[in-house]
């Protein structure tokens, strides 16, 4: 390992590996560091991504795809349930360890130097000079220099914090999630299922994402400011017992789904944050894989533009912020507001919305789903949405 790089990327998840890949393709000398002994350690993720979300960045490859999704299922508090089957494919459930390795492999092919079992435990930024990062590699440690740094070190964002960026979240701006990988059950391998309200997901949401026709990621998210997080396990266990009776829990994972907190924490000096570290997530569903790759890609493009002299280094963070704002700012803000509306939904509101959606979707033909029209009609059919929206927007 050399001791001076044009770009150091911290964290080899989808955001970091994609940032490294993008930068290497633009000719930068990139070092990608990963804390774990290998890329793709099993992690806390429900693993779903839309067709567009994936194919905008990586061509689908059978090595990392668990199931192809065509149907969406909703169960609401009162027990009202419906399944909508779309004529075209809607998304995928990935095999995240294989997916993460796939992107990191593409980055290495493009010329990125990847080092694993390497932990960045200190960073020093300067107004004009390169950043210095202190690395621990097993028993050894060293300082390395980088002209630019992209921190994609996950939800805890230690690099951002050490660099003085206020990345901490209030308790109300996240969901605490617990998920089981359940096997030995029968599931529809083309279905993503959501349950909201009622006894299985009061004030939260429960998901069943098929990994095959006999296994699934089954998890529950609750806001920890308003709920006892101990309920997560009690509710999940009850749901599994009621629905499946006999099943095996292969492993469990937990995590935080951060909520979007605005574009104020995207970087400082020559450091940019991407992915969960930048809180670039869909606040409504918690989906973050596509947004991670998107922000990783934009961060790398901003760095490449700065290296090629398109703008002064001092403008880097502002340029990156403008790129993120242009491409996904509206969406991130909209989803955050939608989340705030849904947090106030009662079981009756959920049922009104679900009944409207069922009727609406039953009438649609292939390719004619218009999200703007759904939202407009939902406001007409579920009048309480208007009142709740006044407070959120």
């Amino acid at each position, binding site marked *: 390992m050399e001791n001076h790089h044009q770009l150091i990327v911290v964290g080899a998840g989808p955001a970091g590996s994609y940032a490294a890949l993008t930068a290497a393709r633009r000719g930068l000398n990139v070092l990608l560091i990963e*804390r774990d002994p290998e890329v793709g350690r099993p992690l*806390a993720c429900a693993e779903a991504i839309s067709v567009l979300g994936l194919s905008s960045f990586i061509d689908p490859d059978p090595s990392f795809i668990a199931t192809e999704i065509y149907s969406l299922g909703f169960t609401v508090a009162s027990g009202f349930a419906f399944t909508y089957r779309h004529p075209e494919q809607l998304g995928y459930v990935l095999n995240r360890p294989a997916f993460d390795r796939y992107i990191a492999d593409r980055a290495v092919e493009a010329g990125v130097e990847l080092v694993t*079992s390497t*932990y960045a*435990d200190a960073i020093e930024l300067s107004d004009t000079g390169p950043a210095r990062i202190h690395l*621990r590699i097993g028993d050894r440690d060293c300082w390395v220099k980088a002209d630019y740094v992209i921190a994609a070190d*996950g*939800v*805890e*964002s*230690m690099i951002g*914090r050490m660099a003085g960026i206020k*990345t*901490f*979240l*209030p*308790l109300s701006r*996240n969901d*605490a*999630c*617990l998920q089981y990988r359940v096997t030995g059950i029968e599931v529809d391998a083309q279905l993503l299922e959501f349950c909201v309200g009622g006894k299985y997901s009061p004030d939260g949401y429960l998901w069943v994402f098929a990994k095959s026709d006999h296994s699934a990621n089954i998890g529950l998210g609750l806001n*920890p*400011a308003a709920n*006892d*997080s*101990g309920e*997560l*396990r009690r509710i999940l266990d009850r749901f599994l017992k009621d629905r499946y009776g006999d099943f095996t829990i292969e492993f*469990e*994972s*937990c*995590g*935080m789904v*951060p909520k979007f907190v605005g574009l104020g924490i995207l970087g400082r000096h020559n450091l940019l944050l991407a992915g969960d570290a930048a809180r670039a997530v869909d606040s409504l569903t918690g989906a973050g894989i596509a947004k991670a790759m998107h922000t990783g890609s934009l961060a790398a493009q901003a760095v490449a533009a700065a290296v090629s002299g398109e703008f002064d280094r001092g403008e880097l963070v502002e340029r990156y912020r403008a790129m993120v704002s242009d491409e996904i700012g509206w969406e991130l803000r909209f989803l955050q507001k939608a989340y705030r509306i849904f947090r106030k939904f009662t079981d009756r509101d959920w049922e009104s919305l679900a009944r409207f959606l069922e009727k609406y979707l039953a009438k649609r033909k292939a390719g004619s789903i218009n999200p703007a029209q759904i939202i407009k009609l939902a406001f007409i059919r579920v009048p309480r949405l208007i009142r709740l929206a006044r407070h959120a927007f």
Partner: protein
Amino acid sequence: MLEVNCEKCLDCAGCICLCPETALTINLTGLHIDQNACTLCALCVRFCPVQALEITEKKILTNS
């Protein structure tokens, strides 16, 4: 005092984002608590999805 039960902790690091005092850090060996920085605000305890964090006794403040 805030304590972490390493057998329960799944290293998700969610608690770290919530700590207003940066008393929690994670490294290769797991989650670490800086007892001097911790104010026992218990935000992390309320968050933890697997109940790995616990406040075991009152912190004794000495004013010597």
